[in-house]
């Protein structure tokens, strides 16, 4: 039994897809996610088992619409897709979906087909990508479209493009996913054989009429390359983990939680929409400034915990040499905040702040009340 199988336990491994690769590069500093994904652990099951389920899933309506749109495009030898792309010549090859055991064979077929391909559309190719020192299979829901000497990735998405504009989050997610495929195809065929421009096919306006737009994913590609190169060390990381460590879901919950705590997480609120384990990590990170989000953490001078930030602000704690500047800013902020709360018109909900505002502050309390502006407006 190798290291990865031992970490995962007897269950079947979760396969990577473009979405998980994209998410992996979203928070590259998170060792916990890197290890769990490398081991193919079922994170949804894990989160439920330890009592922190996340709200992940897709609406069946959204799935149905996505599938209907794709089926419509691919019907009759891709007639509608060809019309949208302007790709009237060439063949349509569907490499199909198959079982775990035949992945390598299908990958070989993909390689043979794509290398000798001249013009046309290839559906469901099976690609590989080295993620964190491991070869993962990617099953893109993708069509590669060959014209001339270059292959183009075609992504079919069911979000609408209305008056030439679409939801920014959806487009950037699609661009990152497409970049994963471009990268995998380039590793297979060579950089000059695959275009950095991908084609996004979406419904236009409020209809199901398809429209094709070209996205340049060079930026996403370079980000992805950089993040993947940083992840290379995961196999080294796996070696450093204690012997006998396992995330086998069959073990008792406290043991499972202990196992998770052996591997450090880097929680940020963005995880809540990207990682199945985020609710647990949020609970674990309680009291840290990172739980309030990166902008808050930075505005607090990058101080690690809430208690530390408040102690620096009130002067109760002496700043470390590298915290002097942050501490001065926090002290000034607390002094101004207390002064303004005292001088402003009484607020209906200002009560709870008294616990903090009574803390010793470096400012001169006698200056409070100086800047009252109530009723001074030029009406």
């Amino acid at each position, binding site marked *: 039994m190798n290291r990865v199988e031992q970490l995962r336990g007897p269950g079947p491994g979760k396969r990577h897809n473009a979405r998980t690769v994209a998410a992996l590069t979203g928070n590259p500093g998170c060792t916990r996610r890197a290890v769990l994904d490398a081991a193919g652990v079922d994170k949804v099951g894990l989160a439920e088992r330890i009592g922190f389920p996340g*709200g992940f*899933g897709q*609406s*069946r*309506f*959204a*799935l*149905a*619409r996505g599938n209907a749109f794709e089926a419509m495009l691919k019907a009759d030898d891709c007639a509608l897709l060809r019309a949208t792309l302007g790709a009237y010549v060439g063949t349509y090859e569907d490499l199909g979906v198959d079982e775990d055991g035949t992945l390598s064979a299908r990958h070989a077929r993909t390689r043979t087909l794509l290398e000798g391909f001249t013009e046309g559309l290839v559906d469901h190719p099976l690609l590989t990508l080295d993620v964190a020192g491991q070869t993962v299979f990617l099953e893109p829901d993708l069509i590669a479209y060959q014209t001339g000497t270059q292959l183009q990735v075609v992504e079919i998405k069911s979000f609408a493009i*209305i*008056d030439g504009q679409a939801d920014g989050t959806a487009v950037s997610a699609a661009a990152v996913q497409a970049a994963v495929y471009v990268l995998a195809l380039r590793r297979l065929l060579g950089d000059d054989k695959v275009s950095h421009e991908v084609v996004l096919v979406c419904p236009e*306006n*409020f209809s*199901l009429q398809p429209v094709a737009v070209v996205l340049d994913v060079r930026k996403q590609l370079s980000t992805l390359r950089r993040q993947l190169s940083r992840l290379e060390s995961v196999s080294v990381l796996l070696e450093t983990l204690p012997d006998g460590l396992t995330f086998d879901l069959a073990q008792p919950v406290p043991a499972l939680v202990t196992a998770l705590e052996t591997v450090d997480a880097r929680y940020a*609120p*963005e995880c*809540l929409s990207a990682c199945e384990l985020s609710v647990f990590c949020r609970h674990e990170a309680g009291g840290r400034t990172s*739980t*309030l*989000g990166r*902008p*808050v*953490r*930075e*505005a607090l*001078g990058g101080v690690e915990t*809430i208690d530390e*930030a*408040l102690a620096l*602000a009130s002067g109760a704690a002496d700043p470390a040499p590298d915290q002097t500047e942050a501490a001065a*800013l926090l002290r*000034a*902020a*607390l002094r*101004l*905040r207390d*002064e303004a*709360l005292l001088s*402003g*018109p009484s*607020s*209906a*909900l*200002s009560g*709870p*702040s008294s*616990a*903090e505002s009574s803390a010793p502050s470096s400012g*001169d309390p006698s*200056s409070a*009340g*100086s*800047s*009252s*502006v*109530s009723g*001074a*407006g*030029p*009406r």
Partner: protein
Amino acid sequence: MSTLVALARAQALAAGRAQPIATVRHLHVHDRPLVLIPFAMAGEANAPLAAMLGTSESEPRLLVVGQPRNRDERFAFTASLAEAVVPYLASFGEGATEAVPVDRGRDVRHRFVDAPQVWVPNPGGVDFLRLLGRSTRFRRTDGDHPVPPAVPLLGQWLTFLAASAEVPGSALLVNAVQALGLHWATGQSAAEDAHLGSLFAWITSGPEAARAAEQGPVAGPATDPDFDNRVLAPLMSSAPAELVAALRDLLMPTWERMWQSLALLRALPAGARVGLRWDTDRDVYSAFVAHLEEDGTPQPRRDGAVAAAARLQRLENAAARYAVQRAFDDPLVMAEHRLTGAAFGGVVSLAKADRIDDTGKRPVLRPRIMVATTEPVRVEPGASLTSPARPSQKAKVISVTPTGSGSDVLLELSGGMGRKLVAEPGSVPVIGEHLLLTTLSEAYRPGAAFPDPADTPWTHGGPPAHSSAHHEDPAAAPG
């Protein structure tokens, strides 16, 4: 994120209670607002699923689309929504008007004494209404797929409201998440605050209630995938009556929270300049009512080059004005500017109220004061400062002298002291007075001159083609 707000979030987390980040309300709250909670069908491009709306908490009206993929039902929904919403929006345009002097009193124009205010739960609700406006305002009332006249009218109204929601400080279309977040800091991240239930619970009851609310019903417009799969899908195919009941259960908690949020905000004293911004909203509303009566063409899909540039400038001006007004209304907002050095507080140490500058053609009153401050001063001699206590008075910085504990700032005052050579009582700060001075200014920002759309230069695509009122082919819509 300013350090002050970040600090308030940290305090909230430590205390387990939300912290105020404003001492006054920075938003006009209407006496009779329309609360509208839209819900959309997952996967579709802006297909409505349900809406709960009304002007009174005790009378919520629920509109439901039994089968959102059926276009006839969708249009029936839009027609009932129009019938419920348009009369409210238009009613203020039938009310009394007031005269406003323009052109320095040489002329007057009229505006309505009140305007509508629509509340949606979150920014997603605003986006939904914008797209609903886009999909309905070009609908035809004749031809193959006619719609009732109220439908394209609703589209124009929603487009108008959604456009006004982009203007900083406008209160015609308000979202509750933003309105609450403007006044309280919670001990959770902005991502978690985006859930109205969670934000509201944090403010009123604390972190445990917020965590519990996170699991509860969403505030739309997107539904929870789990709800779609478990509740909605089975009912949609079989039981229309139960579907309505299920949607009512889903929307009711948000409905109640919306009204409670309104009450929470009403309890705060309004900022002194909130009324000025509502005046602007009433101007904009009056102009739109006039447009509907006179011309009535739907707003174009995309602004032309000139219109876009003018709009961008209006937005920039509104943003600047909003930032200054909030700071002048609220010492807690002003504190953020003091922290960055754009404002400082101090004590008047010297004052010569009767100083006359007679170097010019005729003598003018130019009192000088010295302000001693311990705060960092980041202004240069020659800069013009204002004090929120005397907004019409300008203070020119003559010199800044560092002292042991801070700086002495010498200022020359002009304006706001009456017309005589002797200052009106109280118009010049006296020795010992605490004074706040800032580089922020409420001064009028003149608009830039833009060419007539017909003279759009070729660099900007040339004059636009005349196609403002093209209608969409209804046959292209999904069946």
